[in-house]
């Protein structure tokens, strides 16, 4: 920008930006980590209620979403390979698939949440606070917060991937400068890992 003193400031440091991304991922891990701490504490304190409440969630939708995310993780990982091999259209195709799968995931989530809302299960709802036990209220509170925050991360990931695709398309990201794609990939895998834990905690362990 204002670096007019003719110093070329464009040092490209792939490893630097990679570890930068990793540091960011560490932060994110701890962010979700806290919610996992809360979850485990309350599960420990109300194990029966958590058991009951988990029955309300649909394992099938959860499993489908898991697989969607896993596949999308693979495609974004592959797109790096494609980029390194210099195959631009295939790179775009693969990251496009990731994008699409991410959106499908969100749509699924939307219907899942919608169904819960229709049953009157949402934070602070009268139905929830009056008819459910304390442990169940906590379970659903955590369910909405954790999957909500995860969904927010999916959205951020989607934006990141879109930007990357834009830059691949315009040639700013290419085999020699693949850091942006790799970093979006890393971020997307983080989102995947978090879901890998969310899925059993909310849908499986009943």
């Amino acid at each position: 920008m204002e670096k007019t003193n003719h110093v070329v400031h464009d040092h490209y440091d792939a490893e630097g930006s990679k570890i930068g991304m990793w540091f960011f991922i560490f932060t994110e891990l701890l962010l979700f980590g806290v919610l996992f701490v809360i979850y485990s504490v309350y599960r420990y304190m109300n194990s029966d209620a958590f058991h009951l409440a988990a029955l309300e969630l649909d394992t099938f939708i959860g499993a489908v979403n898991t697989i969607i995310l896993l596949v999308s993780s693979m495609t974004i990982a592959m797109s790096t390979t494609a980029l390194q091999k210099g195959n631009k259209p295939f790179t775009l195709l693969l990251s496009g698939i990731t994008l699409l799968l991410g959106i499908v995931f969100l749509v699924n989530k939307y219907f899942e949440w919608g169904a819960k809302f229709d049953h009157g299960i949402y934070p602070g709802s009268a139905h929830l606070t009056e008819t459910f036990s304390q442990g169940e209220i906590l379970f659903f509170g955590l369910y909405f917060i954790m999957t909500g925050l995860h969904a927010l991360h999916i959205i951020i990931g989607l934006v990141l991937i879109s930007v990357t695709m834009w830059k691949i398309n315009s040639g700013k990201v290419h085999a020699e400068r693949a850091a942006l794609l790799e970093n979006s990939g890393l971020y997307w895998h983080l989102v995947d890992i978090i879901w890998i834990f969310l899925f059993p905690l909310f849908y499986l362990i009943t």
Partner: protein
Amino acid sequence: MNSTSIENVANYLKYKGKYKGLLGWIFSTDHKRIGLLYLYSMATMFSVGVLLGLAMKLELLAPGKTIMDAQSYNATFTVHGVIMIFMVVVPGLPAVFGNFLLPIMIGAKDVAFPKLNLLSWWLYVAGVFLVLAALLFGPGTPDTGWTFYAPYSFKTGTNMLPAVFGAFVLGFSSILTGLNFLVTIHRLRCPGLKWSKLPLFVWTLYGTAWIQLLATPVVGITLVLIALERLFGVGIFDPAMGGDPILYQHLFWIYSHPAVYIMILPAMGAISEIIPTFSQKHIFGYKALIASTMAIAFVGYLVWGHHMFTAGMSGTAQYYFSLLTFIVAIPSAIKVFNWISTMYKGSINLQTPFYWAASFIFVFLIGGLSGLVLGALAANIYVHDTAFVVAHFHYIVFGGTGFAFFAAIHYWFPKIFGRMYDKAWANTGWIVFFIGFLTLYSPMFYLGMMGMPRRYYDYLQEFHGGNILSTIGSWVLVTGFIIIIVNLVRSARIGPKAEMNPWNGKTLEWTVPSPPPLENFDEIPELGENDGPYNY
């Protein structure tokens, strides 16, 4: 750079970029300008905090109402705490001196991500404004204390949302600064500058950055939960819905205890630079100082429960937390011993920065040792949440970080502004400040031992004496503060020009002109076998 004379080099204060004037600063990605932006914005917030502190002392001058009512008092210590912790001492030395010096000290032209660095400052400002919005608009200033303990924090009728959200944004800014520093230290060290040759200030920034990275998100999400609780009544910390208020305290302190080491580590780093320079001597126990920095950073992560000894934790947890609290004190002790040993057989140049550093050691000792009293279970039960704790943390936060900050500003002032301050006034300011400090906070130890609880708007007659003394101390302190600030501000504009290396320091920042040119180095320096930050 096309000129060799220091006068004509476009130094970082003068160069013209795309924007002019103020815009040239607030859109600059130059790490030095960003450092100064932090300095100015922090100094502003700091002054607000100081005024609030004075107001509290005035209120406590006598029992009953003095200048404000209970609601205002509660709001005052909350805002005072939030400003001082989240806006002043947590960003503190890393954001100002870290930004300014880290790249120069490791022989780099800038930090790894200059734009991210600017973004951090913007986020900082945004956070500040959010918190201020909580004061000015809405149903009343937050009154929960800086700890935001549940369930009061979602029961109070005051304007919590912007305050909590502001603290969250400030946390985010802190994370990004930490991330930036980590990558910078990993990737941008100049050739020959091995890890084992890094200046200790850089090492402390490294340790601090890790804590920022791993602890800050914890408080971030916890505060978001408080906000969600207020908005939707999720129930996470609400005992009426099965939530556990003690869990909130765990999460809050998982961040806020490491945060106290975020505050003190860079301060210790600055002291580790100043003492060798003014003793003209190699630092004593370089490796031990690095090891203790890392030990503080790591063990400091695991002792949070000592803030909760009376909260209703299990006995096992109390046992464990008390034990580790004592363990984490040891690396601090090692540091003190090494600093004092560095003076041994040195050639001590008694200058203002050294006075500050030596008095830092003294007040840090008092603060730290009173921390040991608090760490002992039985003693803690007695003085927890009393004025004793208030004395402890002012001694160590303000005495530690604050004194180190002043030491640092007097040490690096000639480098930063290219001018020298008036030394006689600087020394006068220091002594007045030091006396005021002792008068202000020492009585609080006594009050705490007599059993006066903290966050008390009003108190019983028996606590009167100590409070009067303390209030008088606050006026002396502020007199000292004004002398110092006026001297520095004046000198930054009209002081005599400073040399490149007025103190004969050995770290890399003393090899570039004062003030440094835009990209610090014409050529990236290279360190030989025998060069090092402390090789006098």
